[in-house]
């Protein structure tokens, strides 16, 4: 597969993996390995001072994976910027998956606060990967302020519904000058393949792995889906038509 390039950095994998909601650290590691991921998202939360738990970072080899902290939990630009700065202070490279989701029911990203935070963080030297609704105009604005990707949602986080925003994502891809990463809602390898066939540069998957009976095997399945979709996109797919077009010759029939 051809390389994915984000902010001048090359990646062999086009499947980013989130680390939330797994039943155990072992299950999470199995998914990362099965998916052959190179970019791995994590969240930042307050330490529970009275019960400091097992540190998840001991399970993630930081020489092998680019740790991509997210700003999940941020309700506005100010909170997102604070979280990004804290992530960098905690020793992360200045890469940030920008998420501003004030609505707890659908976790839909706030476009205005996301754009505000992106502007600030780009100026502070972050490589900003913003999670957005599939809005082509917003995607353009974000690219103009200097984000290194745009990450439109296929469907709300954790819903496993697939690429429900297909028409909008197609426009984003058509107009993009940075890699388009379809994030959220992808529940099956065929969903990932669909996004890649459309020309997405990568996908990000978490829930589908975390809830699978066998997260490692699901990682492998999605990896195949992503690769199949990418290769089909590069190979050039035929256009859809309304009427049949014969594959077999239309001459030399028995009744001729």
């Amino acid at each position, binding site marked *: 597969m051809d390389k994915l390039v984000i902010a001048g950095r090359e990646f062999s994998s086009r499947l980013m993996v989130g680390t939330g909601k797994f039943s155990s650290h072992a299950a999470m590691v199995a998914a990362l390995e099965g998916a052959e991921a190179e970019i791995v998202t994590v969240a930042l939360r*307050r330490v529970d001072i009275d019960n400091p738990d097992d*540190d998840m970072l001991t399970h993630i080899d930081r020489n092998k994976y680019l740790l991509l902290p997210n700003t999940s939990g941020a309700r506005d630009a100010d909170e997102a910027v*604070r979280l990004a700065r804290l992530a960098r202070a905690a020793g992360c490279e200045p890469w940030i998956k920008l998420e501003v989701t004030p609505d707890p029911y659908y976790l839909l990203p706030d476009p205005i606060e996301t754009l505000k935070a992106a502007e600030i963080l780009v100026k502070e030297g972050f490589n900003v990967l913003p999670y957005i609704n599939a809005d082509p105009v917003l995607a353009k604005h974000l690219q103009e302020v200097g984000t290194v990707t745009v990450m439109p949602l296929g469907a709300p986080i954790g819903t496993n519904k697939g690429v429900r925003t297909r028409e909008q994502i197609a426009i984003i891809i058509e107009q993009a000058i940075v890699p388009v990463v379809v994030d959220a809602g992808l529940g099956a390898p065929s969903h990932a393949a669909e996004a890649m066939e459309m020309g997405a540069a990568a996908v990000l998957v978490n829930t589908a792995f975390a809830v699978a009976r066998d997260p490692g095997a699901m990682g492998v399945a999605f990896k195949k889906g992503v690769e199949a979709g990418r290769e089909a996109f590069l190979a050039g797919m035929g256009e859809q038509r309304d009427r049949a077009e014969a594959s077999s010759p239309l001459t030399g029939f028995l009744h001729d």
Partner: protein
Amino acid sequence: MKITLNGKEILVGNPLSIVALLAEHDLDSTRVAVELNREVICANAFATTLLSDGDSLEIIHFVGGG
């Protein structure tokens, strides 16, 4: 003195550096990030940064997330 740590008021000794506070709570200073009165404190300043009465401190770490 009284400080607010992760949203909770607690009493601590004075003087107290950030590195001492982390040690008191068995926290590995290489695995957390600290915000003091909304300003991020770099890890190399944990030892030299002394807390004052009324300070508000956030100690955060990485957890699983998508």
